[in-house]
C-alpha cells in the first residue's frame, strides 16, 4: 500500500474530472459567497444611510427595515440549501468517483 509520501497527487490533480470539479466548485462557492457578503452588508449600510427607506410601513406597523432584516434569514437559509443540494447531488458524486478511481489505481484509501 502506498504511503502518504509516495502518493502521486499531481496525477490526481491532472485528472480532467478533478479539473472540472475544481472549476465548478470555485465558480459556485465564491459566487454564493460574494452574493451572501453583498446582501448582508446592504443591511447595516442601508440602516446607516437609507433610514427613510427603512421607515416606510408596508404591513401594518411592520416597515421595510424589519422585512429586510427578516429577508436576510431567508436568503442565508436559501444560499445554504442551494449549496448543500448542489454539493450533495453533483460535487460529492464527482469527488467520490475520482477518489474511487484513484484508490483502485494506487491503493490509497479514503
Amino acid at each position: 500500500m502506498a504511503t502518504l509520501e509516495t502518493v502521486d497527487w499531481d496525477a490526481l490533480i491532472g485528472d480532467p474530472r478533478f479539473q472540472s470539479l475544481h472549476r465548478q466548485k470555485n465558480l459556485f462557492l465564491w459566487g454564493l459567497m460574494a452574493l451572501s457578503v453583498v446582501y448582508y452588508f446592504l443591511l447595516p449600510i442601508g440602516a446607516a444611510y437609507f433610514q427613510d427607506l427603512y421607515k416606510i410601513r408596508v404591513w401594518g406597523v411592520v416597515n421595510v427595515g424589519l422585512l429586510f432584516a427578516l429577508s436576510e434569514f431567508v436568503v442565508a437559509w436559501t444560499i445554504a440549501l442551494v449549496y448543500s443540494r448542489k454539493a450533495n447531488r453533483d460535487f460529492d458524486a464527482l469527488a467520490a468517483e475520482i477518489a474511487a478511481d484513484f484508490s483502485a489505481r494506487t491503493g490509497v484509501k479514503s
Partner: protein
Amino acid sequence: MSVIIRKPAAAALLACTFLAAPSAFAQAGVSEEYRWLTFTVFAVVIAITMFVTYLAAKRVHSASDFYTAGSTVSGLQNGWAIAGDYLSAASFLGIAGLISLYGYDGFMYSVGWLVAYITVLLLIAEPCRNIGRYTLADILAYRNDPKKTRVVGALSVITVSTFYLTAQMVGGGVLVKTLIGINYETSVICVGVLMLGYVIFGGMVATTWVQIIKAVLLVVASLVIVALVWAPYGFSLPGFLKDVVADPKVQARVATLLGDPAKSMSAAELGQRFLEPGLYFKAPIDQISLGMALVFGTAGLPHILMRFFTVPTAKQARKSVIWAMAIIGGFYVLTLFLGFGAARFVGSANIAAVDAGGNLAGPLLAQYIGGGPNSFFGNFMLAFVSAVAFATIVAVVSGLVLAAASAMAHDLYVGVVRQGKETTPQGQVKAARVATVIVGAMAIGIGIAAKGQNVAVLVGLAFAVAASANFPCVLLTLYWKRCNTGGIVAGMLIGTIAAVGLTLVSPNLTYPLAVKAAAHKVLDAEPAKRAAVTEAMGSADEAVAAKAKKDLAALDKAVDKANADIKKWDDDRTSFMGLEKPLIELKNPGIISIPLGFLAVIFGSLLFRDKRAEGMWNEVYARQNTGLLVSKATAH
C-alpha cells in the same frame, strides 16, 4: 482513571451546587420563598448532564476520543452541538436584551451572527474536516514548517479562547449572582469545577452531549415562551408589533433614548421609532466594522472549527452546518418575540434595573409569562430559563477549554516539545487531561480576577482576533498555492497585534477624564434639577407629584454614582493604556485589522517563498476536495 476516583469527584460537583445555597443573599431575581425551586431545577439539569458525562467517560480511551469524540458524531448531533456552542450567554441572553432595550438595532445584531455560518459552510467546514485532525494548527502545519506554525497557531487559539472564556466567566458570574444570589466568586468556581468535571472525564464526547442537551432545552424553553407571548395576537406579526409600539413603556423608553428630539414627536411616532434603526448604533462605520468581525470571526473561532473534526466526513460536516444554521437562525427569529415581548410586558426600565446590559430580558419575560414574580409557575419558568443559562455557560466554557487544552497538549507539547515522539495513546490522553486542568485553573483564576470587566469588550476582542489572524491564515492556506510559513507567522502576529492594539486604544476602555467630566456635569446640573423636582412634588396633581418622587430618587442615584465615580478615578488621568482619550473612534477594529491580517499573510508568503509549501499544494488541494485519507492520522 478509575471509577473510584470518579465517584467522589461527581459527589463533589453535586455538593458544589448545594453548598452554594447558604451563601446566597438577597437582591436576586428569585424571591427567597421560591429559592428551593430554583435549586431543584438547577440540580436536575446538572444531574442530567453529569449522568451523560458518566456514560461518556467510559468511551474515552484515546486522544482522538478525548479531542474529537473519535470522529463519530453525526451531522445532526453536531449541528445541535454547534448551536449549543454558539448560543452562548452573550448571544442568547444578550440579543434578547438588546432588542428589549434598543428595538430594531438589537435584531440587526443577530443577522450577522447567522450570516457568519455561510462563510463557515462554503469555505471552511469541509476542507478542514478533510485535512485536519484535532486542532486549527493541524491545518496550518500541513504544508508549512510544523514547529513555527504550530507555535503561532496554538498561541492564537489560546489568546482567542482566553478572551472568550473570560467573557463567559464574567458574564456567567454576574448572571448567576443576579438570578439566584450566589456570590460572584462562588459561581465562577462552580462553573469552573463543573466544566472541569465534564471535560476531564468525558472529553469531547461529554462536551458534545452537554451542548446538545443544553441547546434542546434552550430552544424548547424559548418556543414555549414565544408561543405564550404570541398566541393572544393570533400569531400575527403586525398584530403583535402594533401592540408593542402602542405600549406607553416602550414609548417612554424611546423618548429617553432620543432625548430632546423626542419632545416634538407624538406617542405613536415614538412607539414606531422602536422598530426603526439608529437607537443603538450611532456611527455607521462601527456597525459595518462589527459586521465584518462577526461574519469572518466565526470562521476563525477555534472551538467552532474543532467541532468539524468530530464528524467522520465532509458530507457530515456540511450537514452539521445546515442543521446549525436552521437551529441558530430559528432561535434568532424567536429573539424578535423574546426581545419585543420583554419590552412590552416587563418594560425596559424594569429590565435595566436588574441588569444594565439587559441580559435578563429573556428570564424576566419567562417569569412574567408564567404568572409573575409571586406565582409558582412564573418562578418555575424563571428557574428553568436560569438553569438553562447556567448550563449554557458551563457548556460553552467546556468547549473553549477543550480547544485551548488541545492547542496546548496536541500542538505545543506533543507537536513541538516532544516533536511527535510521545505517541502512545495513554500518554496523549494524559497530556490532554493535564492541559485541561491547567487551562481550567487559569480560567477560574482569570474569571475571578476579571470581575467587573466589560464583557462586550472581551467578546469583541475574541471575534476581532479570530477574524484578523485565524481566518486569513486558515483561508489562504486552504485556497492560495503560494501561502507558506512566512505568511502564516506574519498573519498571526500582525492580525493579533492589530486587533488587540486597536481595541486597547479604542473608546471601549474607561477613560477617567471623560468619566469625571460626565460626573461633574451631573453634579453641576443637580441644584437646578433638585429645585424643579422639589417644586413639582408640592403639586396638587397626584400624577405629577408621583412622577416627581420617582425623578427625585433617580436624581439621588445619579448624584451618588457621580460622586462614587469621581472618588474611584480621583488619582487617575489616563486609561489602562496610559491614554487620556481614545486614539481612534472605532469601537470594533475589524475594518482595519482584518485587511491588515490578509495583507500580512500575502506579503509574508511572497517575501519568504517556500518551494516545499508550493510543492505540497496539489496534495492539500486534492485531499480537501476528495476526502482521500481523511481517516489517516498524519504525523507532521
